[in-house]
């Protein structure tokens, strides 16, 4: 029983991490209709910014803020300088460019910061809570991760549903021509979408890193899992991304503990992806049936 509880809690915590990353993918998809494979590298880069600042003596929260700001800048710069040139062309071009960015950013960070493992401090404790003499696999830091992801999700839902900017971003993504005719400054909206997505990605990177290890490739497996989580949830829905992340986290944790062990986890993730795409191609929370990519 204790093992089941620990496995479940551990899966939920992992799932929240996947959800954090899936949220960033959803945001950029909603605001630009591009699946950004460079998201992981960009988040990793800002995590290294935070780590460098923490090692220079900054406190965690100041470093977090600095990382989010650098994420905003990085997202905007990438959109303006690189993505802008392939926007409006075939969609595949933009996707391939993000793949190229993914490799380039990772290599650049490896050159600057080295490729070895480094531990990343957590803002809250890493010891599990004790209930009735038993320590369970829920730590203060994991509570912080869960709260931060839920808050981010709520903010994103509010942004798209209740604000003019959110509406304009969705319009710019869906129909550039029409939006432009209606007075939406499409270029700015795309830049803003990239910048905000990079902020969410940076947050995800920092949440994932806290109390764990970072190295230039540490986001690689999370890119795959985060993508599966986002597709599970429909790629369009922040709530879907979080639910998808949690489902995936739980499923993989049970697979690792009870069905086949650690070596079949990646396989299980792909099986889940294929099954979802076969049974519900739009994802579990898709709002529209027709999709473009």
């Amino acid at each position, binding site marked *: 029983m204790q093992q089941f509880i*620990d496995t479940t809690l551990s899966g939920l915590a992992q799932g929240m991490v996947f959800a954090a990353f899936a949220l960033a993918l959803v945001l950029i998809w909603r605001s630009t209709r591009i699946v950004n494979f460079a998201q992981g590298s960009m988040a990793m880069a800002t995590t290294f910014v935070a780590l460098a600042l923490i090692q220079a003596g900054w406190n965690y929260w100041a470093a977090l803020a600095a990382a989010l700001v650098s994420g905003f800048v990085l997202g905007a710069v990438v959109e303006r300088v690189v993505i802008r040139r392939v926007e409006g062309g075939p969609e595949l071009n933009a996707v391939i460019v993000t793949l190229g960015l993914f490799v380039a950013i990772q290599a650049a960070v490896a050159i600057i910061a080295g490729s070895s493992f480094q531990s990343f401090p957590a803002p809250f404790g890493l010891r599990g809570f004790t209930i009735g003499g038993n320590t369970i696999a829920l730590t203060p830091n994991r509570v912080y991760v869960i709260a931060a992801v839920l808050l981010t999700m709520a903010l994103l839902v509010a942004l798209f549903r209740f604000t003019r900017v959110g509406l304009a971003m969705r319009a710019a993504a869906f129909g550039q021509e029409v939006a432009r005719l209606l007075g939406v400054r499409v270029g700015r909206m795309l830049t803003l979408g990239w910048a905000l997505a990079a902020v969410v990605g940076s947050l995800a990177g920092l949440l994932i890193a806290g109390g764990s290890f970072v190295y230039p490739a540490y986001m690689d497996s999370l890119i795959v899992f985060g993508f599966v989580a986002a597709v599970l949830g429909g790629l369009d829905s922040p709530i879907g991304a979080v639910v998808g992340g949690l489902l995936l986290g739980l499923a993989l*944790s049970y697979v690792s503990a009870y069905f086949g062990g650690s070596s079949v986890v990646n396989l299980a993730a792909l099986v889940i992806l294929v099954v979802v795409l076969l049974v519900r191609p739009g994802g579990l929370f898709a709002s529209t049936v027709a999709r473009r990519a």
Partner: protein
Amino acid sequence: MVRSSRRLVRVPIAVLAAATVASGLAACGGSDDSGGGSGGGSDAGAANEASDVGVTEDTVTVGAHFPLTGVAAPGYSEIPTGTQAYFDYVNAAGGVNGRTIEYEYLDDAYNPTNTSQVTNQLVLDDEIFAMLGGLGTPTHSAVIDFLNDEGVPDLFVSSGSLLWDDAEEHPTTFGWQPDYEIEGKIIGQYIKENFPDAKVGLFLQDDDFGENGEKGIREYVDDQVVSAQRYTPGNTDVGPQIAALKAAGADFVAGFNVPSYTALSQLTALQLGYDPQWFYSNVGSDPALVGSLLNNFSKGKVTDAALLDGALTTEYLPSVDQPDNPWTQLFQKVWDASGQEGQLTNYRIYGMAEAYTFVQALQAAGQNPTREGIVDAVEQAGADFEGPALAPFRYSADKHAGVGGMLVSQITGTSSEEKTPVLTTDNGDAEITEYDGEPSTPPSSGIPDVEPVE
């Protein structure tokens, strides 16, 4: 010390560049020293010849593959810098039989596909005389057949897999460090004698490494093992595995895992409030490296930075925390003289010790070594090579296994305390016995002097 060792593993590219330059310089300076051979058996009068591939009148070229980048790079990328430093030291003293040793190591990023590629380059383009200390079980397995087919001596593989000890199938391949099976046996016996009531959990890398170790441990405490959990390298979530060990009631966990997974298992156990007695095999236990991995947590809310304190491990080489050991003193001198960036680490000592054994093998192969000759020489004389290892090698015509013993120690801070004398054994049913030989001391020149075999 912990801080600086992290700093130094962060610059493998710079180290590689420095090493390449150093090897280039060594090569340029080599011919000046020819004839000043310090090794044994430089018969006066006889001339040096280009006796085989990779051997000229005044050089011998050896190659290696190491992970200089990627997940396996922390720690392991330092090994070839140690080897380079020792060869520089030998070359500065005139080399072996008047030949300087040129050492070329390439990055395979711990990826077997890359290993095949760089090995092809070393053997076919660079025409190395021998492979020396190629690192890793999955990586080196990918090239072992090629090296044997080409007749390249495949000396002293940097891995404790049992695969390297097969004189019939792979006649040119030799292991070097104690294999994981005998390490498992020594760990198993230690548990049986000192923790007879412990419920033993195993935390294993899901490949040869974990498998060989488990085999050895189970030979002694099969009835005490309550759970064996395996992790796949690359999957960093070991929560389910540690939760399973805890649920099985294991109060003693023996790990056959790499250093980053030592850190991960400690961290996960902390989350679960799980506090068994840990025993990490030699590979996963370098306290300085694991400490540097866990170091940043102490800046967060983890107050207990010395998570590894009290864990048990095994040793078969002198280490940097034994400054009074004459071998450590020699290696410190060699490292300082090499002028490479960074401090002496246990990984560099490992690299130097391998280089030391190679120099012995080269001396034993005589004035004009051939590929076949050096394989014969290791088979005939290898068991008598005296070096920094705590126990002798097991080399013979039908046995290509490396060091045959180790001791158990307990980690205290970044240092360690010996818990047993040096114990020697062999694969299979062989008994574990206390090693009765004297601890070896290095020659005053710091360079071995082995007679050529006939």
